[in-house]
């Protein structure tokens, strides 16, 4: 195996966190059970990686195998990338083409390779008739840079393709072109978009506008992805007593009251996120609660200004 390829293997495997190592290697299915058993996974990570690279050399791993491993790693870490979505539209008058995955893959590869001499294209099939395409870009004189590939995820039964941000933005039109010959007009399957329409038309939501506003505000504040797992938040209050009622024993008191409020939950931030949609609290929530991820702390001291 040449040095650059070995180095690429080493760096790709080194990226994988130890907690995911076995799962990813098994998904990759390039090294056999027996081979994996010969590796001592209790060593330091660098030594484990070295052993694994040696095994890859024994199996005469190719660039293609490395690309597959890279795709699998990215599939596990898809949330770490930023994705753009493209929708393909059919020109009026075109016939419906029957889609064949293998034909798509081979012609996609050919188109790219014809245009750019130096490009590495790899495919991996995934759930729901989708295919992950990894493209490493080179130039006319330089070999493809394996460390900055672009990814395209194409769901073949839909007109949508997702691309991860590619450093070489000039290659986008080329990608678009290779899709032009393969667009699909079959209607979207509801399952793949995760639609949650209330199918029963006998139930009418009077406050639909308000519900949508709450969803929007919640999404703006908390985002779409799962929240970081937090188990409690603690607020120490040293504020003067405030009351709507006139008078009362505590209203005249000058010293601040000391009070500790603790919120605990198996998954506090998800619980806070679901408060407004569930109707238990108004949206937007108090910034004291929503600032936790931004400020990166869950102990607060609140004093009068």
């Amino acid at each position, binding site marked *: 195996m040449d040095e650059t390829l070995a180095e690429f293997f080493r760096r790709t495997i080194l990226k994988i966190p130890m907690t995911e190592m076995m799962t990813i290697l098994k998904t990759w299915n390039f090294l056999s059970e027996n081979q994996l058993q010969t590796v001592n996974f209790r060593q330091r990570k660098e030594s484990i990686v070295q052993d694994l690279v040696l095994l890859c050399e024994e199996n005469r791993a190719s660039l293609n195998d490395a690309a597959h491993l890279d795709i699998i790693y990215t599939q596990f870490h898809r949330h770490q990338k930023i994705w753009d979505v493209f929708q393909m539209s059919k020109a009026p008058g075109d016939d419906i083409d029957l889609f064949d995955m293998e034909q798509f893959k081979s012609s996609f590869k050919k188109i790219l390779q014809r245009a750019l001499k130096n490009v590495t294209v790899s495919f991996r099939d995934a759930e729901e008739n989708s295919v992950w395409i990894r493209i490493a870009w080179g130039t006319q004189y330089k070999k493809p840079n394996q460390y900055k590939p672009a990814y395209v995820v194409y769901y073949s039964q839909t007109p949508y393709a997702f691309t991860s941000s590619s450093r070489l933005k000039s290659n986008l039109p080329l990608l678009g072109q290779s899709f032009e010959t393969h667009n699909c007009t079959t209607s979207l399957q509801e399952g793949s978009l995760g639609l949650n329409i209330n199918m029963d038309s006998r139930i*009418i939501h*009077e*406050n639909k506008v308000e519900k949508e506003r709450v969803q929007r505000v919640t999404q703006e504040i908390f985002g779409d992805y799962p929240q970081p797992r937090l188990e409690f938040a603690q607020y120490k209050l040293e504020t003067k007593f405030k009351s709507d009622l006139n008078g009362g024993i505590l209203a005249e008191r000058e010293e601040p009251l000391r009070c500790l409020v603790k919120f605990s939950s198996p998954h506090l931030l998800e619980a806070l996120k679901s408060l407004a949609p*569930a*109707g*238990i609290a108004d949206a937007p929530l108090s910034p004291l609660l929503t600032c936790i991820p931004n400020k990166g702390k869950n102990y607060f001291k609140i004093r009068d200004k």
Partner: protein
Amino acid sequence: MSALRPLDKLPGLNTATILLVGTEDALLQQLADSMLKADCTSELKVHLARSLPLPCSVNRPRIDLIVFVVNLHSKLSLQSVEESLCHLDAAFFLGKVAFLATGAGRDSHCSIHRNTVVKLAHTYRSPLLFCDLEIEDFRAAMAQRLVRLLQICAGHVPGVSALNLLSLMRGSENPSLEDL
């Protein structure tokens, strides 16, 4: 701002419409689903609202029965119901309003005392029902009961009107209300 009136629209043919008002959308949705699964000869329609007044923009049929759902675990739900009651025409309280309190089964979670809702229902001269909506069997039974109530309020049961029903229910369910 439209206050809801019970008789300002013509009824639909064999149609009965119920309006469920409550802050916790998930509970209302589940109750609505259970009601639609219940046996019923009339065409049912269920409207769900967080509070009154309702937005003007929706084109809605005549409302035959309004059920205010209070979650005993949530002070906000009671407060929202109390505020909504101001926006209801007095004529509705002649048998076309009911209160439903949920959550009484988990006493440690209740932040509203049972008597608070009893007093509220008494003030508005309307029946109060208790049901833990989170438990499927109880919810199904309550849904069947509400469907029957709704049919009477819509005039689909010959010989019984909403007002008749109100006096019947008052007599058997709340004997000690006068003592409160």
